[in-house]
């Protein structure tokens, strides 16, 4: 267990020692404040409190999308950079299995996505408090955290997808490109029966709030099962390719 913790420490240092490490967090904070200002200046009464503002903004139609994008960018290089820098050779000739090394990378991807989400939530909340105040409305911290959770589910699925594509392509650019493209088209809903088995319509769990469904016949449980299955498949493909691949 200690050796696995050490692998996680290594991976975390690899991303946190970069000079650009704080940029995504700064982007998130500035964007949240700016968005709050714009919304407030257009219609000052649209949100009754910071809680209501946050619970709307943290969904994937608002700052939530930015959180997902930043987490994808952070994930894209974690495997492919090792290949492009050539450091993969020194990494794999250690007394650690490839599975453990990749697992530590995936763990750090999740930790990183979590820190981005937490910073995003705090930034959005502070922005909401600044422009809309803390009192008023019916929404509270509960609604805010629910929104964060809905968005985090799709963030995790997307970073897992990016993680797999990073392993398959060993190219940071292609990984970001492909995953971003998927993120862009995931709002398209094709109203056909087969489409509910596709990843995209299942990603927006907040659609089930108030008894709705993305496509008639879909349920929350169905979507959760579908998302879990897709995530497991992405990981299985990623791990088996990484374990078998010759490093030439």
């Amino acid at each position, binding site marked *: 267990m200690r*050796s696995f913790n*050490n*692998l996680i*420490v*290594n991976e975390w*240092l*690899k991303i946190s*020692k*970069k*000079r650009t490490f704080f940029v995504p967090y700064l982007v998130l904070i500035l964007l949240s404040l700016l968005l709050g200002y714009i919304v407030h200046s257009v219609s000052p009464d649209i949100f009754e409190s910071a809680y209501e503002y946050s619970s709307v903004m943290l969904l994937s139609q608002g700052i939530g999308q930015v959180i997902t994008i930043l987490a994808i960018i952070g994930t894209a290089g974690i495997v492919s950079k090792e290949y492009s*820098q*050539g*450091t993969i*050779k*020194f990494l*794999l*000739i*250690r*007394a*650690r*299995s490839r599975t453990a090394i990749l697992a530590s990378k995936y763990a750090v991807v999740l930790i990183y996505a979590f820190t981005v989400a937490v910073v995003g939530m705090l930034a959005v909340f502070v922005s909401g408090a600044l422009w809309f105040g803390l009192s008023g409305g019916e929404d509270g911290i509960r609604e805010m955290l629910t929104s964060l959770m809905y968005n985090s589910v799709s963030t995790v699925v997307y970073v897992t997808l990016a993680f797999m594509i990073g392993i398959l392509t060993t190219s940071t650019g292609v990984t970001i490109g492909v995953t971003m493209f998927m993120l862009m088209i995931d709002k398209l809903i094709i109203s056909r029966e087969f489409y509910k088995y596709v990843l995209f319509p299942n990603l927006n769990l907040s659609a089930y709030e108030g008894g709705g469904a993305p496509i008639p016949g879909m349920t929350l449980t169905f979507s959760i099962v579908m998302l879990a299955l897709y995530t497991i498949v992405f990981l299985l493909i990623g791990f088996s390719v990484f374990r*078998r691949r*010759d*490093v*030439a």
Partner: protein
Amino acid sequence: MKQGSNEHMQDSIVLQMNGVSKIIKGKSIVDKLTFDIRKGEIIGLLGPNGAGKTTTIRMMTGLIRMSEGDVIVQGHSVKSDFNKAIGHIGAIIENPEFYPYMTGLDNLKQYQRMTDHFEAGRIEEVVELVGLQEAMNKKVKAYSLGMRQRLGIAQALLNRPKLLILDEPTNGLDPAGIREMRDYMRRITEVEGISILISSHLLAEIEQICHRAIVIQNGKLVTVTAIGGEQETTTEVKLTIRVGSVESAITHLEGMEYAELLSMDSARSEVTVSLHDSRVPELVSTFSNKGVGIFRITENKQSLEEDFLKWTGGNRIA
């Protein structure tokens, strides 16, 4: 007696290649390679471009899967017991690449966290061995190639390996750097008492530092040869003698049954003869007694380069 020495040999084997092959799309890149590396030995891996040197080394270190055979390191199989086997190996494969935005020390700490037995002070020890104390807090992107090579050696020694594998260690280094590298290798075998496997296309390099050379071509083992030990093993010597009179030298040589005239060069007044090592004084005294006049005697030693060209058919030198 003989059995005893055999057993001793078994004990002192650090790495065993057992019929290792790599087959890609039906083509053998490496074909049933078998050889041993003994304790404290510096071994050269030679071969023309595309002979399979790098593939062989990548299979030893588990970066590439073997199609057939196995590599045994200190009794542990690279195939089935990878973590234990690789724990005895330190390696630099092609150019040493580090995380450029981290300092030398941070890079070494990365690899120390991946060793099984944490040893405080080990980093300082290896850094001192390669003489990088001053550069430890500089970012690796500011390092010269020579410094990166040294940092590469330092990371390879962190886990106290029994075998150090260096793939083209002098590639891209200037003559001073190459010499430095050679000094490090000598010092490492003395201080750490470990075996080194060097793949290189610089034959003179191999000749200067290695005890044995393994020559491969087209993925097949061509020969394993001892370097520097030839004098003891060869009893027949080839001498080129510069004489006063070639004619009288030839006349006298024809009368000797122990020496054979190989060639003559009257323009340079030289004869080349082949004879048993023990008969050399006899030849010399005969020549001087008969007034042939000896000006110079040089041994006609085949350099590794000539051997190499002979073994590999002379084409496509790496």
